[in-house]
């Protein structure tokens, strides 16, 4: 499951670890927003999508209320498209509710340079004018290149730039774990 040329160094979260981290984030979201009134979750494709769905389910269990979930494809908003090789295939953005005046929780698996989040912020702003946008990331690995920070973090993992964080989820990868890999 790892990236070619990288070897696995350590497991940061196992199945239970991921579950607990998401449960804690769900509680923090409810607490910070004093409930779920006007709340919506938007997952960044690909792995932000299952994470957003799981958070919505947990929030629903805790509060007994449904929070709408949307999915965002940020490819058209990336600032590095011309540097990539073959063009990334576009996916659909599915935000089936108005974002205007809502508090949107943006969900992604790994927070790294901040460029993906910047692109996602632009994409959401083009859909409407949310009251606020908060950011939830399963892993924050540091190395920010933009002034962006997460409101909710599953686990902070200081990394070197030679390492990569691989989040593997049942829905997208067939297994549940977060591992740190390095070259060599």
């Amino acid at each position, binding site marked *: 499951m790892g990236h070619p040329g990288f070897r696995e160094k350590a497991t940061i979260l196992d199945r239970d670890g991921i579950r607990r981290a998401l449960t804690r984030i769900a509680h923090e979201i409810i607490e910070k927003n004093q409930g779920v009134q006007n709340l919506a979750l938007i997952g960044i494709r690909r792995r932000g999508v299952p994470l957003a769905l799981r958070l919505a389910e947990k929030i629903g269990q805790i509060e007994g209320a449904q929070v709408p979930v949307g999915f965002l*494809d940020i490819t*058209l*908003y990336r600032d590095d*498209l*011309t540097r*990539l*090789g*073959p*063009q*990334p*295939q*576009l*996916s*659909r*953005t599915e935000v089936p509710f108005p974002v205007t005046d809502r508090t949107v929780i943006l969900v992604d698996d790994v927070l790294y340079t901040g460029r993906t989040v910047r692109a996602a912020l*632009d*994409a959401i702003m*083009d*859909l*409407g004018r949310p009251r606020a946008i908060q950011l939830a990331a399963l892993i924050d690995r540091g190395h920010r290149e933009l002034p962006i920070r997460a409101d909710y973090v599953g686990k902070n993992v200081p990394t070197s730039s030679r390492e990569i964080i691989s989040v593997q989820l049942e829905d997208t990868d067939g297994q549940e774990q977060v591992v740190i890999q390095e070259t060599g």
Partner: protein
Amino acid sequence: MPVRHLLGLADMPAAAINEFLENALPMKQIISRDIKKVPTLRGKTVVTLFYEPSTRTRMSFELAAKYLSADTVNVSASASSMAKGESLADTARTVAALGADLVVLRHPSAGAPHLLARMVDVPVVNAGDGMHEHPTQALLDLFTLRERRPDLEGLKLVIIGDLLHSRVARSNIWCLPRFGVDVHLVAPPTLVPAGLAALGVTVHDRPEDALPGAGAVMVLRLQRERQQEGLIPDVREYARLYALNGERMALARPDAYVMHPGPMNRGIEIAPDVADGACALITDQVTNGVAVRMAVLYLLMLGRGD
């Protein structure tokens, strides 16, 4: 294998055609929003070179570029004022000087975009070359059909009109059978080019012979400017024998789609009530044209693997 230019569909693999259409789906979402703009092609320049008059195709390409934040430069030229070889050489120099990142070319000569593609270092999109191809029109037709019927296998599509002069028909004849569409063609014998049957399509003289069982009918514009050669007796007789009217539509399936690449000669090749009927996809085709062209610009301009 990334596609470098979009010159025609005759030799384009089905996988490449599918890639254009799949990327058109998210593009269509963008043009249905309040804010119809993404920053994807910011700083890029698209040059549209139109050696033939066209409003809708040029506007469609221009909007597609603008919705992706590219700048556009429009160059219109009269074909009659320039010898063909010279004009394209001049064009290539102009394009280079303008700093274009992609060129959209409409030209009265078949093969002109192929020639331009060899002369410039940027992607070239064929927006119609003579009586040869109009690939983005065929892509948008395929996209529009698949939007309504994702599996086109076995769909009977009847194309009625001036097949001889129609690049739209040619691109569709090359493209649609590969996706399982059973293509039937109808035209007066004088407007049927030789060798069509070899392309896996069926040719009829009368609409009445082709329409029974049709799931979609595509009407071509009678290009009145190209009827000076006496290939049809007169426009009124053509309308009487070939116009898609309610009576003829009744021969097709009750839910058959009606398509037209536009602009329409209402009352000549198509009756107004058919053009405005519940099953008409003509305005969908116009909207989808922008989405498909956005996908074409995106795929040709970004992240080329060469």
